[in-house]
């Protein structure tokens, strides 16, 4: 038997091993690093989250239907959302790493090998954009935050969709092309301080197997005496299922932190390495698995939905939006909510971004005498809005989380009492809530302020690259857009949102 292109795995302690260039690498941290290097660490993290999800589903359908007393509603809309953005802020995309929706498909793939490739026409961000807008719309239309039953239905629907798509289609099609939470996490992770990346690029230049993307094959598999091709051998460790080739991967976009590349790399040359949040947003050129962001309309539209959706989602929970809906109903005579909500979404996610981004691009083009098309300018500069968009999501979700973090205790105690008829976890301590609003409000402003700072810095950097002779002319129109969005977000935060902490008022 002859096997082509096989490299031996690198032993720990080899001269090529990590840490030589002084970068902080999470995989080198004692205990935690060892745990993450363990091949089953992802499954170990996913299992408790899966059990929790099953508990939430049960409580959603059979528990109390008053949202503040229901685990499904509380954990989904207060704790999960809050922790997702906070973990993204201080770490990275670890929630995708622990995603429970992937476990059923892993189990199914042991019996059924997916045989289809994701349709070429859908290999872009448009399906996930439609899903993301759909979830935001359903959230408002069905008052998902206040409906345990619908929240449970959403979780079940998520499991079903992930299972169906990933058992029918090869690789991580659901994560890359469909999952709206994943897309939210990918964009937010551009602001994370950790990134899965190559430790020493020189090692990759000499690598011949590219296991990080192709996967590691079982060279000991029985195959007779004939010469075989490596790629036809069974895979014992898959490579990146999202088509991110580590040596050319840039940033956190499309990376689920699954660490398949870490386990597959025969040189132990991939780590979870510290970097400056937001730095990748100003990068130009082609990114592995993504292409050139400057020419990718899908990512630009996804960014617009991420940023303007943050404003819309926060605005929809304030008192003025109810007044506005009533006014629209009075003008139009409509008595059903969905067309009115549709109008608000049309304005918030299509008309408003088109006006703001289009005007900024037109002014940039006129002032800089650029030959780049308006759409090209929007593609280039839209990324600068991501830090502010993330700041708005942080302020919004952080508010719910910080003001209601401890409510999980009495709700769990109450669930236990209702399930077993006994106070096994003690009497529900309903007085437990979270931080006071007087503390959380400045924190909201702080998150928004950091978002504003990041957006302006990234915008200046992009403007300098766009027109190095007179960057101010390119920077000014976009800075006006950024500051307008920041002021809008600050205004929304000052609007009354009664009972937000306990989310009785949404």
């Amino acid at each position: 038997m002859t096997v082509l292109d096989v490299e031996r795995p690198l032993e720990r302690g080899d001269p090529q091993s990590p840490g030589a260039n002084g970068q902080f690498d999470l995989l080198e941290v004692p205990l935690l690093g060892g745990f993450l290097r363990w091949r089953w660490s992802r499954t170990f993290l996913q299992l408790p989250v899966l059990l929790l999800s099953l508990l939430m589903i049960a409580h959603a359908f059979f528990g109390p239907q008053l949202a503040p007393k229901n685990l499904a509603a509380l954990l989904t809309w207060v704790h999960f959302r809050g922790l997702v953005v906070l973990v993204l802020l201080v770490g990275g995309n670890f929630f995708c790493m622990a995603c429970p929706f992937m476990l059923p498909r892993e189990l199914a793939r042991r019996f059924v090998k997916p045989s289809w490739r994701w349709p070429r026409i859908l290999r872009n961000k448009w399906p996930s954009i439609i899903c993301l807008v759909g979830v935001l719309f359903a959230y408002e239309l069905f008052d998902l935050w206040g409906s345990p039953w619908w929240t449970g239905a959403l979780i079940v629907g998520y499991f079903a969709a992930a299972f169906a798509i990933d058992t029918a289609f090869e690789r991580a099609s659901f994560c890359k092309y469909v999952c709206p939470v994943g897309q939210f996490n990918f964009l937010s992770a551009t602001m994370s301080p950790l990134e899965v990346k190559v430790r020493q690029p020189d090692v990759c230049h000499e690598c011949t197997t590219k296991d990080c993307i192709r996967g590691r094959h079982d060279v000991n598999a029985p195959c007779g005496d004939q010469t075989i091709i490596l790629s036809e051998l069974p895979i014992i460790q898959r490579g990146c299922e999202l088509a991110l080739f580590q040596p050319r991967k840039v940033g956190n976009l499309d990376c689920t932190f699954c660490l398949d590349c870490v386990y597959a790399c025969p040189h132990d040359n991939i780590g979870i390495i510290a970097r400056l949040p937001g730095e990748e947003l100003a990068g130009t050129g082609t990114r592995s698995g993504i292409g050139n962001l400057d020419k990718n309309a899908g990512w630009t539209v996804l960014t617009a939905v991420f940023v303007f959706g943050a404003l819309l989602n926060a605005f929809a929970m304030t008192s003025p939006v109810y007044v506005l809906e009533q006014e629209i109903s009075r003008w139009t005579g409509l008595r059903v909510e969905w067309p009115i909500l549709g109008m608000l979404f049309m304005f918030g996610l299509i008309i408003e971004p088109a006006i703001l981004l289009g005007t900024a691009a037109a002014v940039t083009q006129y002032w800089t005498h650029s030959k780049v098309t308006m759409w090209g300018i929007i593609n280039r500069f839209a990324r600068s809005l991501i830090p502010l968009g993330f700041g708005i999501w942080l302020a919004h979700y952080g508010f719910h989380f910080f003001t209601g973090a401890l409510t999980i205790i009495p709700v769990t105690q109450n669930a236990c009492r209702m399930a077993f008829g006994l106070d096994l976890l003690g009497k529900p301590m309903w007085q437990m809530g979270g931080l006071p609003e007087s503390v959380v409000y400045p924190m909201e402003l702080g998150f928004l302020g950091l978002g504003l700072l990041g957006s302006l810095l990234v915008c200046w950097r992009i403007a300098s690259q766009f027109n190095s002779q007179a960057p101010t002319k390119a920077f000014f129109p976009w800075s006006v857009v950024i500051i307008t969005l920041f002021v809008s977000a600050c205004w929304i935060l000052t609007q009354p949102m009664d009972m937000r902490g306990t989310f009785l008022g949404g």
Partner: protein
Amino acid sequence: MRLSWHTPDCLRHLIGMAALWLTMCSVAFAHEGPPFPVLMDEPIPGYRVSVWADPDIGTGKFYVVTESPNSANSPPEPQVEVWVEPVSKRLPKVTYVAHREDVRNWMQFLAEPEFDAQELWNVGIVVTAPEGTPHELQVEVEATPPGMGPWDLAIYLFPFLMFGGLWGVGLIRSWHANDRSNRKDLAAKDDSQNNDEKLEVESSSSINRRVQSGGTHSGSFSSPAFGGRVT
């Protein structure tokens, strides 16, 4: 020292600031905060009543949620009133009507009583069923100041300002370092290009040929797993 995210000192400073910030957060607990439940699932004839209170000095808020005893169907809409009086009895009892709020999935009423001082108050919730029988529930709450005012902003925004400053300086320095590195690369390429040209001139006298420099990000390889080229 060059400021960099990779510098351990920088990380230590950030962790220190985060610890300082968390320490400051912990002093602000106590009674103030978002509405908290003061009664939960209290049974009265025809209803289960839960009350969330936000008894800020000035205008307080009391949210009264009424459910049917068996959670099966929504009960008939009752009339809800809330009265307050100081435990010390220094002021007379004042009654406020609670108005029904526009909430889709349950029945919720809001009353906004006035509290003039930080002290203990008796609060009564009177639920009157459509057939006219009133039932009263009583609790004791402490009215608290709504917050520390401008000091909150100053204290809690301070860590964000420090972090923002460090982050901004780090980003700018990192980009400048990239620019310098790119300029060096370009200069090195220019030098090697000039040397190549000199060699070409010397060897063949063909002065019209110029060596083109290529990009650093391009490149691809073929992988059957991805149905073709991977960039």
